[in-house]
């Protein structure tokens, strides 16, 4: 595949690996957080970790959209489908997120809920047009990457006078999540999560630009290298982070310059601010309530806001006690530190959200990396 294979070249990977081993100071440990699930997925799927020196450790961040979706929000969508007879449309990954009463959207569908997987917000509009007699709700999740398409869908619905379409908005913001991690006691006070820098978001940064990260670099003295989602992007970004640490620098650098600039996509940002405003607070799975970390639909678009339209209230629901997703999302623990990893909690029956999407730290480790936990003989 042209334009893709170049970023998956094993020969180049080995060279970057050699350079990393040459430049990483053996006398110190490097801990970098890859914020995005897309990076987590690339690291696991391509076996990037095996090419890193042993003293460079990667910590999974909370940037997996379905992983941070709290149970209470999925419950709202399930209620709409089962109790209000609404057609709920959502992205594929969201279907399996565990909710209350041992349900998920997939299981609610099996109980008769009309729940449909869509590839884009526009497809949800089509469902609404095709079913004029039914209420259609787009269960909108994700970071800044998926927010502009939702904004466009709402604007188009308004233009068309589509009266049966609304959005259950659960869009969240990357910079507030990074701040939250940097402000967490584990990072600031106890130092139990040593973070020396961030592999910064790829697709999110295409929308918001590299500017918003400058604050972290300055205020918290943490280097940020924005990286694409291909494995070579990740390796190159790690090399750039090692260099910044070695040189005592904390800057925002852009490995993903083929797609990201400082300002981002201004057109998309404008549409987003036209339709959405900040929520004073929002519950994240794993991180808890995070101030100003999510978006809601502006009052001018109230008729497209499913929360207002159906009078939905939010009821927080605690995670399973044994589930370590919270600590894993904050980088405090690794999947294998969780007692129920791979025993009670598996991709077939996920207890925690990190086991749902292949971008989730637990699912990625289960699917691609768990053989490393067990000694297995490999034939030459």
């Amino acid at each position, binding site marked *: 595949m042209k334009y893709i294979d170049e970023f998956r070249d094993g020969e180049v990977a080995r060279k970057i690996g050699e350079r990393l081993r040459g430049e990483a100071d053996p006398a110190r440990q490097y801990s970098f957080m890859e914020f995005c699930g897309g990076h987590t997925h690339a690291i696991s799927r391509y076996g990037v970790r095996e090419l890193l020196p042993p003293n460079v450790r990667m910590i999974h961040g909370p940037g997996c959209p379905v992983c941070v979706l709290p149970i209470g929000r999925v419950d709202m969508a399930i209620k709409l489908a089962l109790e209000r007879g609404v057609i709920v449309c959502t992205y594929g990954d969201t279907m*399996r997120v565990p909710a209350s009463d041992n349900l998920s959207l997939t299981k609610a569908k099996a109980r008769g809920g009309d729940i449909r997987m869509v590839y884009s917000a526009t497809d949800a509009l089509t469902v609404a047009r095709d079913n004029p007699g039914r209420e259609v709700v787009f269960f909108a999740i994700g970071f800044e990457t998926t927010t502009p398409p939702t904004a466009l869908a709402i604007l188009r619905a308004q233009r068309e006078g589509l009266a049966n379409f609304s959005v259950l908005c659960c869009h969240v913001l990357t910079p507030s999540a990074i701040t939250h991690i940097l402000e967490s006691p584990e990072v600031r006070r106890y130092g139990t999560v040593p973070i020396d820098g961030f592999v910064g978001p790829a697709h999110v940064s295409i929308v918001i630009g590299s500017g918003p990260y400058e604050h972290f670099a300055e205020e918290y003295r943490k280097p940020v290298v924005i990286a694409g989602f291909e494995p070579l992007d990740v390796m190159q970004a790690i090399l750039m982070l090692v260099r910044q640490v070695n040189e005592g620098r904390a800057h925002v650098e852009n490995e993903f310059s083929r797609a990201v600039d400082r300002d981002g996509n201004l057109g998309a940002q404008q549409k987003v601010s036209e339709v959405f405003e900040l929520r004073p607070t929002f519950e994240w799975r794993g991180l808890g309530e995070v101030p100003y970390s999510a978006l809601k639909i502006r009052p001018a678009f109230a008729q497209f806001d499913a929360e207002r339209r159906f009078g939905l209230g939010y009821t927080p629901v605690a995670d399973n006690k044994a589930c370590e997703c919270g600590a894993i999302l904050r980088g405090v623990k690794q999947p294998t530190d969780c007692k129920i990893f791979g025993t009670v909690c598996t991709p077939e029956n996920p207890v925690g959200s990190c086991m749902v999407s292949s971008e989730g730290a637990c699912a990625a480790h289960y699917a691609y990396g768990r053989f490393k936990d067990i000694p297995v003989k490999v034939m030459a």
Partner: protein
Amino acid sequence: MNARDNSTGGTVRAGYVRPLDIRNGRIDMGHGAGGRAAAQLIEEIFLAAFDNPWLRQGNDGAAFAIPAGQRMVMATDGHVISPLFFPGGDIGALSVHGTVNDVAMMGATPLYLAASFILEEGFPLADLKRIVQSMAAAARDAGVPVITGDTKVVEQGKGDGVFISTTGVGVVPHGVDVSGANARPGDVILLSGTVGDHGVAVLSQRESIEFETTITSDTAALHTLVAAMLAASPAIRVLRDPTRGGLATTLNEIAGQSGVGMLLDEAAIPVKPEVDAACELLGLDPLYVANEGKLVAIVPAEQADAVLAAMRAHPRGADAARIGVVQEDTHHFVQMNTRFGGRRVVDWLSGEQLPRIC
């Protein structure tokens, strides 16, 4: 014209019955009620297409002779595909190939098929005729006749147009012992061609994600390929067609059945660039995407070259490749050396393969 129309052996009096309105007609509950309408449907659509001496006898079953002293194989497969017509095939051809292949993957020569149709009220007769004709053509091409069958009609909303179940029987040649439980450490894993073609061709036609592609389904009967391979080496241990769940799932099944592990070489697994690109776009992994005309063979290392050569000499195996080895592993992991230079597990598919959003 009171006499029965003996040319088809049917029970409908020709001349007193108006032929089916294939162009505008639809299945109604009467077609499943067992009366004249049902008989006419069978006669004009099914019998007309499948015509053979067994069906012509008009019995509820079919009698046939079996070779003495040989092992028989029976396999059954239900087909519920949406959309019913896709680039490179349709549910009719698929329902023949699927079962012929299931019989062939036991190392057997397929002999006969049985077919059962569940039709949804309202289903266009023109579509039914097209499907049945495609099915008959596939059976003829494979040389495996449909010798008995059944139709039922369900109310609108209780089916998805048409469901087809087919059952096949075949005989295993002497000296052949093929089973998913036979893989042993040291064996070589062969694959007959590119993976993911069928799944991507079908996906490209789904209403919600329609995209333009030149990819067509690989749906095909593989029994002549199997015969050529067994002629090259009757010592083939495992044969399986990686249908639903794709190559990854099939290999995990075999690893579990045989109690072994596997190590694959990603660079050796053939994937068409168009399939690779479509999967990239949709967030899918070609290793988990369905095939309908490919097979995996596990053979003793010393036989691998001979079997691979036989595969490549057959039109259905022109792109055959050696993709990995069987190894000892009490955890039955299927591992893969990635093109990138790392190593990872190729796990079972969990649930449905869902696209990632990020």
